[in-house]
């Protein structure tokens, strides 16, 4: 058995509302081992993104309780400054919107190499590694494009830049919130493949937040199905897809159109009121 990297216990997150705090994550438990790929899957409003943000204390106005242990250290109890250091060094982050994550006035290459440069890696070596990583992410002419600015890149290319920034310093954990949602399927496949390789090569663990049940099945080792701020089912992807226990998991799986399925049969739906 591999060692636990991240252990989350009874995580609760509340946000200020017009009539007092509103709890949106109601006690989530999850465990992630080194080198493991865990998917947090759910529909919009299920609390999957808020859970990921709570793990890293990204929202200053959120009130958090419970325990979030990274290698035994409780992140919820850390001083802000040490928390910031962990976000940069131990945990890489990728969000869906690549434009918001990039600095428009710095070159792609500068941004990709920053995580290495601030840790004292010589610029030349950092550049070499950055170019290699971009090329592995399927960016053609990576060497030449390295000195371009974000506005010269398409949305899909920018997202690959964001992923490169997140993984170049070899974090123990990558938290990726819908990292491929804006990408075309072939680029998506390539990005997921690279993340898969990195987990093998560097023992990097991935917490993948997604709504896409196809991606979960192809990528993750285990999954947590979330709904209304709760984890309704946790298990290996084999168990979740082939032996789902919770009615919601079953309904969600039945709602997905499948190539090769019977197109004459209507898709099973979840009643709007039940969502």
């Amino acid at each position, binding site marked *: 058995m591999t060692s636990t990297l991240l252990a989350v216990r009874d995580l609760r997150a509340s946000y200020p509302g017009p009539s007092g705090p509103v709890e949106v994550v109601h006690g989530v438990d999850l465990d992630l081992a080194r080198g493991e790929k865990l998917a947090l899957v759910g*529909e*919009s409003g299920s609390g999957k993104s808020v859970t990921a943000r709570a793990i890293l204390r990204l929202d200053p106005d959120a009130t958090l309780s419970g325990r979030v242990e990274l290698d035994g250290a409780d992140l919820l109890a850390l001083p802000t400054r040490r928390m910031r250091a962990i976000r940069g060094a131990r945990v890489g982050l990728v969000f869906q919107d690549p434009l918001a994550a990039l600095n428009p006035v710095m070159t792609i290459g500068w941004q990709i190499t920053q995580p290495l440069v601030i840790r004292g890696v010589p610029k030349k070596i950092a550049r070499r590694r950055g170019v290699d990583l971009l090329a592995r992410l399927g960016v053609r002419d990576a060497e030449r494009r390295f000195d371009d600015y974000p506005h010269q890149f398409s*949305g*899909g290319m920018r997202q690959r830049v964001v992923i490169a920034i997140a993984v170049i310093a070899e974090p123990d954990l990558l938290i990726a919130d819908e990292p491929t949602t804006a990408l*075309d*399927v*072939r680029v*998506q*496949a390539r990005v*997921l*493949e690279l993340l*898969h390789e990195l987990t093998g090569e560097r023992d990097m663990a991935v917490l993948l937040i997604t*709504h*896409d*049940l*196809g*991606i*979960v*099945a*192809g*990528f993750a080792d285990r999954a947590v199905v979330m709904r209304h701020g709760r984890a309704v089912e946790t298990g290996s*992807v*084999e168990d979740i*897809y*082939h032996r789902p226990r919770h009615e919601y998991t079953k*309904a*969600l*799986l039945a*709602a*997905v*159109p*499948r*190539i*090769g*399925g019977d*197109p004459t049969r*209507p*898709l*099973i*739906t*979840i009643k*709007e009121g039940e*969502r």
Partner: protein
Amino acid sequence: MTEPLLRVTNLTKSFAGRRVLSGVSFEVAPGEVLGLVGESGSGKSTTARCVARLTEPDAGQVVLGGRDVLAAGRRELRVLRRDMQMVFQDPYASLNPRMTVAALIEEPLAVHGLEPDRRLRRKRAADLLETVGLSAEHLDRHPRSFSGGQRQRISIARALAVRPRLLICDEPVSSLDVSVQAQVLNLLRDLRQRLDLSILFIAHDLAVVYYLCDRVAVMEQGTLVEIGTRAEVYGNPRHPYTRSLLDAVPVPDPTDRGSRP
């Protein structure tokens, strides 16, 4: 072979000197659903917009029910648009937030002069809401009080108001959650059967297209590289681009981790 409802021939379009459509040709038969798939930038949305003449193509021909869409003058185009209506991707942007549902659905009836009587217009709006799985009690609400899936139903009701023969849907379910997506897909499938609708269905999600479409056209960089029946394109794709797209589709089954080394 029946006469096609829509015949598109050699559609060509450039934006700022960049060729975005090169000689796109296809047909849609009465009652048929044709899927138009491809990656972003492949020209699938531009094709749809040229067919509806929301974008003017540089060359080519679009014939709907025997009438030339591209040669039509303003008045003729308005009549033609009664036969083809569009449903867009973002139901938050495509419905005027200041109009009630009744006004949104009645507007096309008024514009086309189809139902001059106000009471009958409202009755028709109520019927249309029921057709798409909502009800008359929703008529006086505004779009903001509806979820994304319900809004997309309202968009569909609005498009159906003028009894079109062709529905052009540009990524109508791609912004919806999977359970809501299933409802809208079931609705479209049900409507085409009940109303004998033809649908030109633009989507990037190949599983969604598989579920809904009789035939599939695959676009790459402004060119239509392959067109065939669902069984042909999915079962025996001829073009390498189609194959690479199909290979990249995530399969919702962990036992099928195909391309993984």
